[in-house]
């Protein structure tokens, strides 16, 4: 058996062979990670009477700690509506969204009162926007410190947190720079650091690589994967970017407001990124290995003893 081969093969959306909720990534057996986000029957209906439109229809979803979920689908399929509801930015018409906070307490976002939502957002979620959405009036440090402030960390502690996060995303040297003085890649890294300012259990990213070139997009993808692996943070990415399949634990295909297909991926033994089983590959010790790039493939072929194979996540 191929050590890093996916349990559900293929990059194209394929039907889940097991009759279960399309969003449920629990392997055909048991989950080894605790759940962070549980969505049941989530629906968003716009309009009234004969003109109603269901943007999201009775979606179920379970997200585990440290899981990176990629939601793909055509424009108008309901991806962003779903993301907005998950992030407590849009009231669902029906259903529940239960989030388990860092304190272990479950909260149903859909049932929360309007005035509770800002606090929920500031303490529970980190948002990453397509166009970074940094405040141009503030420096990189201040952009992050503002998010920390909103989450309850104030004064020097907020700035210290901002400095730590900038260091983590490799931008300590750009602490005093304003967004207009930074490249797109740098801005998105600051945006990621800002999303981490409140130490959220869940990151929600909307087309995070859309404005980045291939190289920077890949860098960002690796960073997001790292955050899921090292921090145990759950990440939901809504994107059209196929490159992101490589880092996702699961890919959900959304169409007409519903999840249609699930794709599972292999793990690159070098960089630990999730990869599609259709790219660079090699056989070693009688097994098939999949890589994110030729560089990773070469690394294994030249020094195979350095790498311990890791099974696919699904």
């Amino acid at each position: 058996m191929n050590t890093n081969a996916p349990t559900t093969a293929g990059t194209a959306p394929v039907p889940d062979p097991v009759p279960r909720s399309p969003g449920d990534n629990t392997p055909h057996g048991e989950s080894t990670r605790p759940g962070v986000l549980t969505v049941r029957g989530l629906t968003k209906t716009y309009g009234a009477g004969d003109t109603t439109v269901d943007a999201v229809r009775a979606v179920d979803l379970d997200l585990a700690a440290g899981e990176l979920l990629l939601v793909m689908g055509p424009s108008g399929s309901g991806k962003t509506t779903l993301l907005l509801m998950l992030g407590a930015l849009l009231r669902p018409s029906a259903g529940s969204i239960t989030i388990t906070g860092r304190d272990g307490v479950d909260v149903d976002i859909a049932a929360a009162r309007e005035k509770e939502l800002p606090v929920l957002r500031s303490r529970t979620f980190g948002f990453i926007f397509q166009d970074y959405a940094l405040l141009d009036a503030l420096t990189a440090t201040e952009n992050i410190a503002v998010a920390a402030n909103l989450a309850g960390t104030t004064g020097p502690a907020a700035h210290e947190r901002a400095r730590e996060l900038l260091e983590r995303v490799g931008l300590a040297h750009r602490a005093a720079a304003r967004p207009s003085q930074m490249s797109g890649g740098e801005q998105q890294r600051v945006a990621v650091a800002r999303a981490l300012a409140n130490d959220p259990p869940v990151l929600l990213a909307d087309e995070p690589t859309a404005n980045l070139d291939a190289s920077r997009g890949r860098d960002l993808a690796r960073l997001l994967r790292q955050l899921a692996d090292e921090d145990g943070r759950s990440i939901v990415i809504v994107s059209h970017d196929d490159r992101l399949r490589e880092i996702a634990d699961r890919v959900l295909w959304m169409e007409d407001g519903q999840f249609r297909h699930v794709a599972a991926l292999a793990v690159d033994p070098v960089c630990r990124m999730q990869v599609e089983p259709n790219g660079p590959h090699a056989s070693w010790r009688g097994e098939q290995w999949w890589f994110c790039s030729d560089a990773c493939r070469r690394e294994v072929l030249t020094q195979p003893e350095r790498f311990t194979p890791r099974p696919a996540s699904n």
Partner: protein
Amino acid sequence: MGRRFLFADRRRATLTVLGVAASLLLVLVLGGIFAGAVDRVTYYIRTSPADVFVSQDGVRTMHMSASSLPGDTPERIADIPGVAWASPIAFASGSVAGPQGRQLSYLIGYDTRTGRGGPTRLVAGRTPAAGEAVLDEQAAKQLGVQVGDQFTVMGTSLRAVGFSTGGSSITNTTVFVELSEFGRIHDDRVSYVLTGLDPGADPEAVTDRIEAEIGGVTAQTREQFADSEARIVTDMSADLLRLMSSIGLVIALAVIALGLMTATLNRLRDFAVLKALGARTPRLAAAVAMQVLLSVVLASTVATTAALTVAWLLPLAAPAVQISITTAAVAQTTTTALLVGLIAALWPLRRIAALDAATAFRETR
């Protein structure tokens, strides 16, 4: 955050601050000119050695008034307990002319032997005798009169023997002559009686006593008389001043409103992002209020500095104009501008309150 938002676009911030400063400058200078005029009009009274001014019954001012008292009034007042001295002055309004022009003028006749009721300070020359007069230095300069020159007071030619100070305002000047000379120019009259009190005497009690014992007179302390004089000027100009100040504040309102509206509209996305990150509306409102506060405080600082500069420079060009910029006036103008600014902030605040946090995601879609 409000500070950063305000100065993120420095050009707009500068224009807003300068616009507000210009309107506040208008308000401050108008108020300053008015206050300066009041200072000048009451200068003679405020610097007088008299503790109490006695006038004809019902007459409470010098400006726009005519007071006539019986000739023995000074002696009768001097006999009242608590009164140390009583000196008459004669007062009339007319005109004064020199080689370079003509001005409206108060003519004051006073007892040159005691000097009471005369000029507060001579900056040149000496006390006038018969056929002589002392005029204000600014009027002398404008009329082209030097010490020793002849000039005309109410149609009578007099020789300028000295210059006083502080007696010219926007509307008129002051000429001092000996009492007997006043009689020759105008008529023999006692217009007011300047009264000094014994040490420790209560001015209020003495004024009551004078009114009770003399009859047909009005007695006021120096402060009361100066206030009455200021009030008549205020009453005459208040409507105009209020109108001009209102115009200035409306301009300030418009500038602040426009600046804030533009700044807020340009930053709606930022506010939406902050809302998405968990900011509550009051926090964002505080950022807007901070922009108002900073704009007004900066504008007020600029306006005050400019007003003080104008107050220093303008009298060099127009000596009769005095601009009094007081701390109270600056505080009042700044406070009013702050209230106006907060009113101007209401519309942006409504926009922010109604702003959907989800637009943070939709902006570029």
